[in-house]
């Protein structure tokens, strides 16, 4: 079980969503994916995608306009 980090800071729609999906595809079952970004709509939409994909949303944090979403495959 490994931890995969995805940095989408400064990226806009739809890149954070796409990069999250790419990371999920490459991850193995049980891996943790940590996505970091600044695009506000993505903070709301990545959890929607996680739910649609039937994965576990571990955590959503935000500090100073930068959010971190943690997902488990």
């Amino acid at each position, binding site marked *: 079980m490994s931890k995969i980090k995805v940095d989408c800071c400064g990226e806009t729609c739809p890149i954070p969503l796409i990069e999250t*999906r*790419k990371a999920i595809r490459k991850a193995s079952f049980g891996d943790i994916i940590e996505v970091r970004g600044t695009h506000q709509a993505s903070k709301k939409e990545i959890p929607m995608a996680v739910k649609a994909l039937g994965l576990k949303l571990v955590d959503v944090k935000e500090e100073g306009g930068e959010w971190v979403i943690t997902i488990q495959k």
Partner: protein
Amino acid sequence: MTEKLTIVVHSGDMDKIYSALIIANGALSMGMEASLFFTFWGLQRLQRGGLGKGPLSKMHMLGIGKSMIKQRMNKANVSSLERLMQDFKELGGKIIACEMTMEIMGIKKEDLREDLITEYGAVGTYIQEARKSTINLFI
């Protein structure tokens, strides 16, 4: 059965190609399948070097409007159509090129981005994709 999105990409306008690719990538990212059927002016965007060559659907103004929009897109860090296309392919998206358009416009396979095209087909191929789709758009 996986949910699926199908889009008929009829327009070759730059802004509409963006819409099609953003929606299609969104669908793939959210766990759906996605197929893009490129026909008429849309197919011209699959010609070699043609992806970003389309005019704006409004306020093109002989290219002045387009370059203004492109500047603003750069400033907002909007990704290129090429990157969206590569992401679409990487996430398993399907590209279908319309054979009838190829005949009408005299476009040969070697004129097209064969690296992107999954299959060549006509209306029957599109219907087979669309009948299994939960979202179906015409752009």
